[in-house]
């Protein structure tokens, strides 16, 4: 079975619940505990919020979950009109704090007109 789960969907708030569900399903496949599943859902929720707030209106975002035992590698991206990355730590106070608590190796980049967010979620007892 491929460790990758990928899909594209509109970069819009009404689809965030779907992302939470996929995050949960991917976490189950990675044999996460309930705490770990909650971390994965929180991290994807917050990453989705950050991307949607900076995505071009009407655009789609791409999600990739790479599932490994007790580890999820998550990548999301979407087209954006912003010329430079916002200072998330300053402007997205709560979102930033949450995602930094539950995700590891968080990396946010602006590449060729797209905002990219990449991080790992590790199960609490891994």
């Amino acid at each position, binding site marked *: 079975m491929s460790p990758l789960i990928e899909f594209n969907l509109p970069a819009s708030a009404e689809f965030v*619940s779907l992302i939470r569900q996929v995050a949960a399903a991917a976490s189950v496949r990675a044999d996460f505990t309930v705490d770990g599943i909650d971390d994965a859902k929180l991290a994807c929720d917050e990453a989705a919020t950050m991307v949607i707030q900076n995505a071009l209106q009407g655009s789609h975002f791409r999600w990739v979950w790479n599932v490994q035992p007790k580890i999820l590698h998550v990548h999301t991206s979407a087209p954006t009109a912003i010329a430079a990355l916002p200072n998330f730590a300053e402007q997205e106070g709560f979102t930033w704090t949450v995602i930094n608590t539950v995700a590891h190796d968080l990396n946010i980049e602006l590449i060729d007109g797209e905002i990219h967010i990449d991080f790992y979620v590790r199960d609490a007892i891994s």
Partner: protein
Amino acid sequence: MQAGEASDLIIELRAPDTTPRRHQQILESLVASHQGLVHHFIKVRDAYDREDLAQVGNIGLLNAIDRFDPTRKIAFSTFAGTQIRGEISHYLRDKQDLVHVPRPVQENAKVVSAAIEILGGQLGHSPTVAEINAHCGLDTSAILEALESASVRSMRTLSAAENWDLPMHGDSDFESAETWATLHPALERLSTEDRRLLGMRFVEGLSQTQIAQQLGMHQVSVGRNIDRIRAQMRRDTGELSPDE
């Protein structure tokens, strides 16, 4: 309006020697000069009456004028934006129909919740879905649905904390959360118990199970309350809410 000018006007507005006439002039000037900001936040809400939303946005603007702290290193327009967006989000949320959780899912949620409690005690950590499945026989999708329903129910009780009785302990845990300067107004609106829980989860980085053990609460209750507080924080800071 130039950066810093709004701050100066708010300081003048609050000065004890400002006459009522000048007070009114300043207020009108601040409101008029920030109409672009109000309309920025309502322009994407095509499904709603823009006039209603403009009124709601202006309530947020007036709240911002009232609550803005000129000593903080943050532009008034940034602060006003969060207040306007928060007020509009709150208004839209109140207009939305509440999500109904079907009875079978509610029943499964009780079973899963009990399983997490029992297995957590036996294993010393929160169980995996496979372990819950082995314990109660529910399949993976039913277990995930039950776990998610806790979040849905937390949205339904957004403004009313349910079964919420946190034991109090030292204040030091939460001190570092006070560094979230831009969130300060939203944090102040949380109850002491909610702030403590938020601090334990996102400042100390404790898991739901660790918090539950420290506070003598049920793990599912911790998760439900975290979701409720996150929703409230997002509403109050004007950040995008996933259920909008």
